[in-house]
């Protein structure tokens, strides 16, 4: 047995133990470090998300239609609501996803709606009772056998009961006639309101109470308890393909036809083959339109005295237009003209021979048309009207028309109804550019939105020119000349950096008021031609780092000081000049207070002021959110691009500002 070990063995054991000990320490240390590192990363990532999400939301929203911007929860990938065109009518039918009675999920369009109400089959009801109102709670909509009923709690003498109120107690004013919910579960039914309204009224006595009921055609006696609900009537998108558009006045008799689990209204239509039946997909106001180019080319202004008094309504392409006779002043033949835009003394008219060019668009698709002034007349133009897949700027002419989009009843074979709450929009992933298109064509009191970008660009450019001119000269002066008073002046220059900018805002405004420069854009850039302390400081530091020997060599060659600046110093100072340019862009593109106080005409607004005013006007109207978000993204874009490519200059500049003391 070898119980004792030699000193060498001891030594080795000790060594081994020591190394494992050291290893374990370093391992735990490195474990600590890696824990610390992943902790750091966790903090960084969480914060980065917090920094990015608002911006991502903004950019995402700018590519979405307004219904999506307002959707909760947020839709993180821009989508487009799918639709089918209703034949050649120009009406879009939006697509929904719904579950049909067979339990199949499918794409459908809505072809109408139907109101239902809830009723109890008297035959299955044994007893009712009367209870004082003050013992009965308010209603809570509750699901009973798949039907949502208004349930109340009754604190009855025998305990709490879930009940439904079915009528007022005719004998006691303060009492309601009620039934217990668990006794009516099997007797409840959902009934089309039109059938209920059609049925005969009757009275039935139950538990000594006389109740108003409905005698249905199928023999059922129903006690109507409400509430009413509206269900959407849905059909296959195929239905829309055969759509055509007619004047609503041509709709004739209405009757109901059973289809699927629902009924649809079918009409006869005047002028259509005898016996044909039609379904109205949608009935709404349409606006007669005409391509703006065409109007500009062929329409003319007629004085009221050249037009006949009598007015005739003539149908062109299914649209009613007012027509009068025009007698030219030069004595040539009178001819009929359609009134496109009426006025008080002058009318915009068009010879009826051109009226085959007339078409119509659903009024709901026309979003804030712009206006065109023509002498005493003003007419409106929808710049982004889409017709047959093409954008055609269209003038709004004539009066709104009540039109119906109809399809033959024969194409609808399997319609069904479903609660609107169970419908889901049928969408596909797509970047919607409408917000951008709309914001760029948008006019705020006559000023197109892109003009604000142009104004901002102009202000930035003038400031750049100003800074380039003034700051290089002044910085060169401070960097390369010796003169009495220079040091004091430089201290003053540094001192002005400490004076907060907004303090001099109002006094400077008064200076410009005295100079008569208010209402112009001059105050926004002219100060740059007189230097900027911070930029002068940066340039001077940079110029001083350029060896003076280069100047001397040039001077020996006969160069003047100005030539030295232009030929020697500036070519070597590109990084400093870039910093200057970027800072100028940064300050003046983002500037808000100065443009806000100096600009009083809409046409001069910079993008920041315009965005803010735009928001003040439309923050409450959800239909404008796509434009506001797109406008905000566009205003960020130049800074974003510069930041991506020239981040270094921003950071170095900021750090210089921070370390200048």
């Amino acid at each position, binding site marked *: 047995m070898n119980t004792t070990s030699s000193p060498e063995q001891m030594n080795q054991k000790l060594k081994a133990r020591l190394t494992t000990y050291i290893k374990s320490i370093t391992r735990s240390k490195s474990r600590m470090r890696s824990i610390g590192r992943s902790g750091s990363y966790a903090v960084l990532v969480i914060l980065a998300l917090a920094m990015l999400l608002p911006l991502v*939301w903004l950019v995402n929203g700018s590519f979405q239609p307004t219904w999506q911007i307002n959707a909760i929860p947020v839709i993180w990938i821009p989508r487009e609501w799918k639709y089918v065109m209703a034949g050649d009518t120009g009406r879009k039918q939006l697509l929904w996803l719904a579950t049909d009675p067979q339990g199949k999920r499918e794409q459908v369009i809505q072809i109408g709606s139907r109101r239902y109400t809830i009723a109890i089959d008297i035959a299955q009801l044994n007893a009712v009772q009367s209870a004082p109102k003050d013992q009965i709670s308010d209603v809570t909509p509750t699901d009973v056998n798949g039907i949502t009923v208004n349930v109340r709690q009754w604190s009855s003498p025998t305990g709490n009961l879930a009940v439904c109120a079915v009528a007022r107690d005719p004998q006691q004013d303060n009492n309601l006639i009620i039934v217990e919910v668990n006794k009516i579960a099997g007797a409840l039914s959902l009934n089309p309101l039109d059938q209920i309204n059609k049925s005969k009224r009757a009275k039935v006595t139950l538990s000594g109470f006389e109740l108003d009921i409905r005698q249905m055609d199928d023999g059922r006696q129903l006690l109507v308890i409400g509430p009413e609900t509206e269900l959407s009537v849905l059909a296959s998108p195929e239905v829309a393909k055969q759509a055509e558009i007619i004047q609503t006045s041509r709709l004739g008799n209405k009757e109901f036809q059973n289809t699927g689990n629902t009924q649809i209204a079918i009409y006869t239509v005047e002028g259509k083959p005898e016996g044909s039946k039609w379904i109205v997909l949608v009935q709404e106001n349409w606006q007669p339109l005409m391509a703006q180019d065409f109007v500009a080319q062929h329409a003319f202004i007629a004085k009221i005295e050249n037009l006949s008094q009598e007015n005739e309504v003539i149908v062109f392409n299914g649209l009613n237009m007012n027509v009068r006779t025009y007698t030219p002043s030069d004595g040539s033949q009178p001819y009929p003209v359609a009134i496109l835009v009426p006025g008080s003394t002058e009318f915009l008219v068009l010879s009826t021979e051109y009226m085959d060019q007339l078409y119509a668009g659903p009024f709901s698709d026309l979003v804030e048309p712009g206006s065109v002034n023509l002498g005493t007349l003003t007419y409106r133009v929808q710049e982004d009207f889409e017709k047959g897949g093409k954008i055609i700027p269209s003038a709004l002419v004539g009066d709104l028309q009540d039109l119906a989009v109809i399809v033959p009843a024969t194409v609808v074979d399997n319609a069904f109804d479903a609660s609107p709450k169970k419908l889901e929009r049928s969408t596909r992933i797509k970047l919607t550019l409408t917000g951008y298109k709309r914001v760029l064509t948008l006019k705020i009191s006559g000023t197109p939105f892109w003009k604000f970008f142009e104004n901002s660009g102009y202000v930035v450019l003038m400031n750049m020119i100003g800074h380039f001119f003034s700051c290089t000269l002044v910085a060169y002066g401070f960097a390369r000349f010796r003169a009495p008073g220079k040091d004091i*002046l430089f201290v003053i220059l540094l001192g002005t950096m400490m004076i907060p900018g907004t303090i001099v805002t*109002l006094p400077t405004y008064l200076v410009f008021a005295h100079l008569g420069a208010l209402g112009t854009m001059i105050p926004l850039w002219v100060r740059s031609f007189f230097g900027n302390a911070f930029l002068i400081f940066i340039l001077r530091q940079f110029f001083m780092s350029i060896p003076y020997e280069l100047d001397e060599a040039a001077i020996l060659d006969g160069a003047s000081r100005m030539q030295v600046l232009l030929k020697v110093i500036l070519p070597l100072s590109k990084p400093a000049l870039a910093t200057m340019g970027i800072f100028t862009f940064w300050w003046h593109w983002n500037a808000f207070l100065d443009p806000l106080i100096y600009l009083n005409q809409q046409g001069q607004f910079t993008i*920041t002021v315009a965005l*803010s005013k735009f928001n003040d006007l439309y923050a409450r109207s959800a239909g404008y959110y796509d434009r506001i978000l797109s406008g905000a993204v566009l205003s960020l874009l130049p800074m974003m691009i510069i930041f991506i490519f020239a981040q270094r200059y921003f950071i170095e500049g*900021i750090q210089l500002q921070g370390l200048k003391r």
Partner: protein
Amino acid sequence: MATLAVKRHGNLKRRETLEFYLYISPWIIGFLVFMLYPLLSSLYYSFTRYEIGGHPVWIGLRNYIEMFSDPRYLNSIKVTFIFALASVPGLSIVALALALILSQKLRGINIFRSIYFMPSVMPMVALSLTFFYILRPESGPLAGLLAIFGLKSPGWLAEEKTALLTIILINMWVSFGSQMVIYLAGIKGIPQELYEVADIDGAGSLAKFWNVTIPMLSSTIFLNLVMGIIGAMQVFDLPWVMTKGGPNDVTRTYMIHLYNRGWVEIQMGSGSAMGWVLFIIIMAITLLVIRSSQAWVYYEGERR
């Protein structure tokens, strides 16, 4: 000969002086016309009743007396101080903490730095608009997010209790990046040997932080504080776009009040007085910080 040389030398000197003043003349003119004159003239106007288009009428201290007895004005001072006191230290702490994390040698640091810094260069108006829509209490995305957890969204900007706090937080979101970048430069400037020496002395990381990092950064911290206070006292764009100073004046900062007095009510005399009071407040705070800084700021090369 000698006198000629001296004379020529003198001529050269005079010529250089002349040239110097010629080169810096744009700045001198700008300084006189757009800095010195406005400041001094507005000091004069602050003692007058002055509406644009009219003539200033001397009324002595009336503007100042009226101002300090106007509850809305006093409220705007209160709002601005709350804003500054709540945002400046918070900003400094967050920015410093992140700068410390970022100054470790980790991979991908530059990306994080860019992300944090990015909002600082964006137009404040566009960022304000973004938050304006994100924070809509009824249908905004944040309300939607809270609803998932069964929480009801507060009114954020619409409620008196939360409006100022919301603006303070958004301001931090926007501007901590630029402070962080300054701290990063400061941390980079700390000589590595100091840490090595501390290591030899057996200092832990906490001890190193308190005894090396903080003292070496004290001048940067100080500078960020001063700049933060100056900036906070002048805050305008953010509350203006989001609330116009409402609801019920709880976000009506000094500059919003001044803007309303000067450009909406067109009272240039009392606007000038407010400008000067703000100037004095800022200068006083800056001086106070500078004074106190002598106790805690460590400047390199300084002997103790």
